């Protein structure tokens, strides 16, 4: 698939949140205001790109040659977790401002399905290094898009009289559900036809 195809797929068609159910916890948890949502979105994008690349390297240079593919989960997550922690430390040291904007989201992301998800999906789809990287970025951007939209809607809802039992998390889910309903407009055929 072409790179554009990969991007469209992961941003719209297989949007991690709205169609794949990956990364829902931060999607619901960190979408109460726009700034946090954007911060989270960028942090996820960054980590996903990192995870895609590092897991690709491990898979193709360690696991496959040694025929120990069954260890992919453990080795991917180990490397991702360590890298994230490392990056966090680095950012915290070199740029407190960036840390405030991005870094504080990083530990959250280790436990985010989306990150391990992209690593595994890349392997399933047999992507090469560049494709993996682009898929990682695109999936992250898809997450960013969804969480940003969600946060703008939730900010609007702050000043609506949402019935009490629905306030907070329930209405966030329902909003997500309606967003997912609309995102069904994007399907595989659309992509195939568009890119010929």
């Amino acid at each position, binding site marked *: 698939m072409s790179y554009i195809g990969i991007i469209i797929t992961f941003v719209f068609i297989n949007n991690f949140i709205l169609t794949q159910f990956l990364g829902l916890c931060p999607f*619901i948890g960190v979408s109460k205001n726009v700034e946090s949502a954007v911060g989270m979105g960028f942090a996820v994008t960054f980590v996903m790109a990192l995870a895609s690349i590092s897991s690709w390297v491990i898979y193709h240079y360690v696991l496959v040659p040694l025929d120990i593919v069954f260890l992919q989960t453990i080795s991917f997550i180990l490397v991702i977790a360590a890298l994230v922690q490392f990056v966090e430390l680095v950012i915290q040291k070199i740029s407190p401002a960036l840390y405030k904007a991005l870094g504080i989201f990083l530990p959250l992301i280790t436990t985010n399905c989306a990150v391990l998800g992209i690593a595994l999906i890349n392997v399933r789809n047999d992507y090469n290094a560049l494709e993996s990287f682009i898929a990682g970025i695109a999936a992250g951007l898809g997450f960013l898009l969804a969480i940003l939209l969600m946060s703008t809607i939730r900010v609007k809802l702050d000043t609506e009289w949402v019935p009490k039992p629905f306030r907070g998390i329930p209405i966030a889910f329902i909003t997500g559900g309606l967003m*997912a309903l609309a995102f069904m407009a994007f399907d595989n055929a659309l992509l195939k036809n568009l890119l010929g």
Partner: protein
Amino acid sequence: MLKEFTKGLIKENPVFIIVLGLCPALGVSTKVINSLGMGAGVIFVLLGSNIFVSLLKNFIPEKVRIPAYIVIIASFVTIVEMVMEAFLPALYDSLGVFVPLIVVNCIILGRAEAFANKNTVKASILDALGMGLGFTLALVIIALVREVFGLGTITLFPMGSFNGVIEIPGLIDSPVRVFGLAAGALLVMGLLKALFTWIEDIRRVKQ
């Protein structure tokens, strides 16, 4: 002691109250049987990781706490994965990518961090069982709604002459298919959560 067990079922239900572990909760809850399978996997992993984390809590250095926990968790997940693929291939197929993703299920690391590394092995076991069952319970509730409306069936384990599928008359012919899709999952979750909040509110007022 028993409280460690029961709290996870309702009062601190991981899905409905704490709102964690959503991805598998929504991703696999298209059929009741998938929920049960996922729940079993999670209970196993939770149990294993809670036991090991609480055993090793003094051994694991602070600086590599998270990687160490994750390695432990990932090992159990991989075991579940391999065993499930070998012995329950159909279930493995329908749970898809969510089995390896148990690793990052927020509940498990969350319990390791929040509970197991501070408590005894015994308490951790109870906590794991409670949380695991609470998770399973939530998944089954969601799956019941989604499967009944979305497919018009209730799928359980096949037993003897019973093929495991209960058909709901009326819905089986033209189910509300959206319930089975991503949108339906989120909507059902939102409505259920609102329902529970509402019940909780009434109970609070009644007291």
